[in-house]
């Protein structure tokens, strides 16, 4: 009988996204079990249900043979389940000890926190697992890897027997990853059961006993790790979905619109640069796709190209002019249109009306004598909304629209402009097939009009369908830059998948070269 069994778990989010669809998932006692899958496959949702952060809409959970209803995170703690989140939930100004005991502080006289007792207990936990942190240090002084140790200590302190780690390696350096894996093995030897979510096949092979593969809210396979190879896992994970049918006209590429030369982005306190010597050129009439798993630098590349984050090295050229130091506003004036991945905070202002959102990038067009021309704006907004099939009125706050319609407003605004450079990031995420098709047509039309397009996406089918070349990012570096040969899409997909997971690297000799990297 498995230690943990989840049966028929379904979770429907309020935006009609079926994140988990009748999932059966089980873990044996004392094993390290990996869950892999692409972005949005539903891995995190499943683990949030297990740790009490979300309630399932259907299904049941059995722990040690007993049916349990996990009412909340504290209840999960009491059942011996603890989760280390991808984004740490620590208070930087507090010490390690204070963070660990937060919520279950040992008391003295029923009123005061017994700091001495807390520190003593924590020291026992730290020493017995070979961690390298001092309970008295303030968390802000710790490295990312040490902060993760604090999170693990925190759940061990709460006597967790089942540990869940959500993409624990995405923020770590190679050495920190090795250290984490040592820790996990020693915990397993100690009798703990561990679930680890990851995108990275190498890590699955290295640490896990069994692996569950998820795709689009469902479990597609459960395997014993020793019995599968990476290629099979990669195939299971990405799936063999139909390629998009897109009419393409191949046109000769023109002059470079956007060129990145050795672009670096470093953050103080992090060993690994967020962007490491990026070289990339986007020509007129060209769609350059960039693929990558989240946490590997796609988001940072987006920020840098849009002028929202200052690079710490290298140069960026727009139409031959160095624009490394100019503002987002100046880039807009030079002809940048940009569809951000973060559509709710960056792409729109939720309390503002659809009209007000429609004109943020081009309101200068509607000014007469310092005042905005309401009538013209309304006409403009209505025309765009009609074109994109958005039924809501232009005067309602955009926050009242569905997620898909918000994205359509953003796309309508950006694609309506006469840009020479278009940066799009995950443009069809959350859109239905017809809308996606419409977006592709619009993007291809802009390409036909001579714009250069940088297309960032974690959706490989999309990139293979639309891009002229595909660059792949892994850990802040570009590890491949391939022409997209549509005749061999299927092979390309497997190949790119391997690059995305760090199994291949065309530019390893130029990089810092980590020993594990294979070719």
């Amino acid at each position, binding site marked *: 009988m498995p230690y943990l069994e989840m049966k028929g778990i379904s979770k429907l989010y309020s935006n009609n996204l079926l994140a988990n669809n009748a999932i059966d998932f089980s873990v044996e006692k004392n094993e390290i079990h990996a869950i892999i899958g692409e972005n949005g496959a539903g891995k995190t949702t499943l683990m949030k249900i297990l740790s009490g952060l979300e309630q399932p809409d259907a299904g049941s959970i059995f722990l040690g043979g007993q049916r349990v209803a996990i009412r909340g995170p504290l209840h999960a703690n009491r059942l011996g389940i603890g989760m280390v989140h991808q984004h740490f939930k620590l208070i930087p100004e507090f010490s390690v000890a204070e963070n660990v005991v937060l919520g279950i502080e040992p008391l003295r006289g029923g009123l005061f926190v017994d700091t001495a007792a807390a520190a003593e207990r924590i020291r026992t936990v730290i020493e017995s697992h070979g961690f390298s942190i001092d309970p008295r240090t303030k968390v802000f002084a710790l490295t990312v890897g040490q902060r993760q140790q604090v999170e693990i200590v925190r759940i061990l302190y709460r006597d967790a027997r089942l540990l869940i780690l959500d993409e624990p390696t995405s923020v770590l350096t190679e050495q920190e990853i090795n250290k984490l894996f040592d820790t996990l093995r020693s915990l397993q030897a100690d009798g703990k059961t561990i679930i680890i979510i990851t995108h990275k096949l190498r890590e699955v092979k290295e640490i896990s006993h069994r692996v569950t593969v998820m795709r689009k809210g469902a479990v597609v396979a459960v395997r014993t790790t020793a019995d599968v190879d990476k290629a099979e896992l990669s195939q299971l994970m990405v799936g063999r979905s139909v390629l998009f049918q897109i009419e393409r006209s191949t046109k000769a590429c023109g002059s470079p619109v956007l060129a990145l030369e050795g672009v670096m982005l470093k953050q103080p306190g992090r060993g690994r640069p967020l962007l490491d010597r990026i070289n990339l050129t986007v020509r007129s009439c060209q769609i350059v796709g960039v693929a990558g798993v989240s946490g590997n630098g796609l988001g940072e590349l987006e920020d840098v190209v849009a002028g929202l984050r200052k690079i710490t090295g290298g140069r960026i050229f727009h139409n031959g002019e160095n624009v490394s130091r100019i503002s987002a506003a100046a880039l807009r004036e030079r002809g940048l249109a940009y569809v951000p991945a973060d559509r709710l905070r960056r792409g729109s*202002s939720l309390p503002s009306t659809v009209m007000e959102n429609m004109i943020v990038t081009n309101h200068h067009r509607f000014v007469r004598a310092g005042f905005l021309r309401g009538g013209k704006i309304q006409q403009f907004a209505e025309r765009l909304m009609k074109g994109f099939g958005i039924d809501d009125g232009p005067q309602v706050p955009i926050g009242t629209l569905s997620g898909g319609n918000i994205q359509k407003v953003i796309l309508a605004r950006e694609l309506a402009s006469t840009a020479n450079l278009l940066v799009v990031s995950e443009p069809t995420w959350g859109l239905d097939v017809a809308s996606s098709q419409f977006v592709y047509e619009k993007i291809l039309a802009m390409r036909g009009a001579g714009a250069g397009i940088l297309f960032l996406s974690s959706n490989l089918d999309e990139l293979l369908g639309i891009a002229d070349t595909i660059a792949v990012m892994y850990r802040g570096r570009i590890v491949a830059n391939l022409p997209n040969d549509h005749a061999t899409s299927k092979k390309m997909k497997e190949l790119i998948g391997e690059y995305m997971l760090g199994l291949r690297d065309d530019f390893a000799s130029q990089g810092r070269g980590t020993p594990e990297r294979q070719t």
Partner: protein
Amino acid sequence: MRREKRYWDFLASFTGLALTLAISFSLVIALILLLSATPGKAIFAFFIGPFTNSYYLGNMLNAAVPLVFTGLGISIAFKASVFNLGGEGQIYAGGLAATAVCLALPAANGYLGGVVALIAAMVLSGAIAGLSGFFRMQWNADEMISSFLLSAAVLLIVNHFITGPLDDPKNNLLATLPIGPQYALTRIFPPSKLNVSAPFSLVAAAAVFFFMFKSHAGYEMRMCGLNREFSRYGGINVAAYLVLPMILSGALHGLGGGLMILGTYHATIEGYSFGMGWNGIAVALIAKNNPLGVVPAALLFAYLDAGAKAAMLNADVTFEIAAVAQSFIFFFVTAQALYGFVHRRRRA
């Protein structure tokens, strides 16, 4: 359907305010019943007193004028999500600047000189507030704190001028020399002090409304206030909208202060603006930062103040009781408005 929902939202916020007023008014009545020997008279004076003669009524309306300007000033800043807590000092400095110009031009034409005096008031107060905005832009220093601290310093500097270089030795009050009679704004409701600054304040509210909701800069400012990342993404100069709203906010405070001198006091009297900056914040909160809502909100505050004064003059209500009663109402009304404000910000 959406329109209907908006209507209900409006009704809900209105009944919320009405309920708050009803609760706080009942508390005031209870307080008076408890402490006054002639409660009927005191209650009448408190609530009806301001309307019993034209002198009271006019003065009440006149007291609302500076509150309109401070309320507008705060609304502009809050709409842009910058926080001006230095209103006290800015009104005070505006009054002094207007006085100083009038004293420096004793023989000037009343209209021309008056305009110059008001411009001076706006420039000085705008610069004081703008400085906090500049600190925020340049060094990310919290403008809420810097404007408050600057205001505290400005109050002392203005006091220095009132009791020092500009002091009127013939006056028993701590006040500057009186400004020339040609500068006095025309009274429109004698014998009260109500003057042409009252209709002007309505024009100002309308102007701020059009600036905020119809103008190009107003649009950019509101977008920055709602979502700075979105604004930066869209190509708006976000840094400028940390400074500009502070300057406008300060200028409106200064204008309010200057008009008080020209219309009501004819000299800068020590502490004449006491509490107006803070009341401006309360007014803006009740008005939900809507410039057109600022006018009734300012009238409400002026009415409560006039009521308390009337109760002191005409019944046995002491200053302390009146002050406590007034504080009750301010506290409840502000708490209710503030609750909505915080609630909305959290959701946004």
